[in-house]
C-alpha cells in the first residue's frame, strides 16, 4: 500500500497517512452520487397527485412540517458541547496512553470525575428529563 501511495503522490510525509482516508472519501461520495444518478436514469417517471402526497392513505396534513423546537433541546445541546470538549481532551491522552502510563490514567480519571460531578448535577436537577 505504501509503495502504491508513494508512486502516485511522491514522498510527502503528511499526505501519505491521509491518502487512504481521501480515497475512502472519494469512493463514498462517488457511490452516493453514482447511485442517485443511476436511479435517475433507470427508474420510470410517471407522477400523479396521489403518488406525490406524503401519505397516500390517512388524514391530510394539518400544518407545516417545520415547527419551532422546544427550548429544552438547547440545554441538551449545551451539555453535549461541554462533554464534546471533554472528549477532545481524551483524544491526545488516548494517543499517548502508552508513554503516560498509570500517572496519566489517574490524572484522566480525576479529570473525568470532576466532570462527572457536573453530570450528576444535571441529572439531579432534572436537566435531562422531559417532564
Amino acid at each position, binding site marked *: 500500500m505504501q509503495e502504491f501511495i508513494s508512486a502516485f503522490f511522491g514522498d510527502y*510525509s*503528511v499526505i501519505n497517512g491521509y491518502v487512504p482516508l481521501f480515497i475512502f472519501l472519494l469512493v463514498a461520495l462517488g457511490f452516493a452520487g453514482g447511485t442517485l444518478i443511476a436511479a435517475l436514469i433507470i427508474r420510470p417517471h410517471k407522477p400523479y397527485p396521489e403518488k406525490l402526497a406524503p401519505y397516500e392513505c390517512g388524514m391530510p396534513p394539518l400544518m407545516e412540517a417545520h415547527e419551532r423546537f422546544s427550548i429544552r433541546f438547547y*440545554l441538551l445541546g449545551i451539555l453535549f*458541547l461541554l462533554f464534546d470538549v471533554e472528549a*477532545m481532551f481524551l*483524544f491526545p491522552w488516548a494517543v*499517548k496512553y502508552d508513554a503516560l502510563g498509570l500517572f496519566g490514567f489517574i490524572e484522566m480519571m480525576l*479529570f473525568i470525575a470532576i*466532570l462527572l460531578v457536573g453530570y450528576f448535577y*444535571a441529572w439531579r436537577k432534572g436537566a435531562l428529563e422531559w417532564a
Partner: protein
Amino acid sequence: MELLFFYMFSAGIIGASLLMVTRANVIHAALLLVLTFFFMSGIFILAGAEFLAVVQVLLYAGGIMVLYLFSIMLMNVEVSVRLRQYHRQSFFAVAASLILIFEVWTVLGRGGSYPAFKGFSWQLGATPGNVEALGSVLYTKYLFPFEVASILLLAAMIGAIVLAKRTIDR
C-alpha cells in the same frame, strides 16, 4: 501534489462560504458552514496541525453547529425565508472588508520581515505527530492547567443548567 490539495481545499472554503452568505434559507447556510469547516480541517492537516483538524471537525462541525441549528430552529425560519432581504449595511460591510484585505495584504506582502514572524515557519507538508507532541506536554508539564480546565467546564455546565432550568420552569 500538496499544493494541488491546498488549492482544492482553499477553493472549497471560498466556494462554500460564498454560497453560505448568499443563501436565504438559514438552515442551508448552516449546512454550508459545516462544509466549510471540513475543508478547513483539510488545510490544517496539510499544515501538519492534526489536532486542530480534529478539533475543527469534532467541536465546530459536531458541537457548535448543533447549537447553531438549535438556535435556528428556535425561531420561525419560514417567515424569515419569505421576508425580502435588505442590505442597509452593505456600505459598511464593503468598507470593513476592504480594510481587512488591506491589512492582510500589508502583513503577508512583506513576508517574514515582521518581528512576530521571526522563527515561525508555516509550510505545507510539515512532519506529522502534532497530537503526540501535544499529549506528551499537556498531561505532564501542563498538568495543573489541564485539571483546572475540567473545573472550568464544570462551572460552565452548572451555569448553563441554572440559567436554562429557571427559564424552562417559569
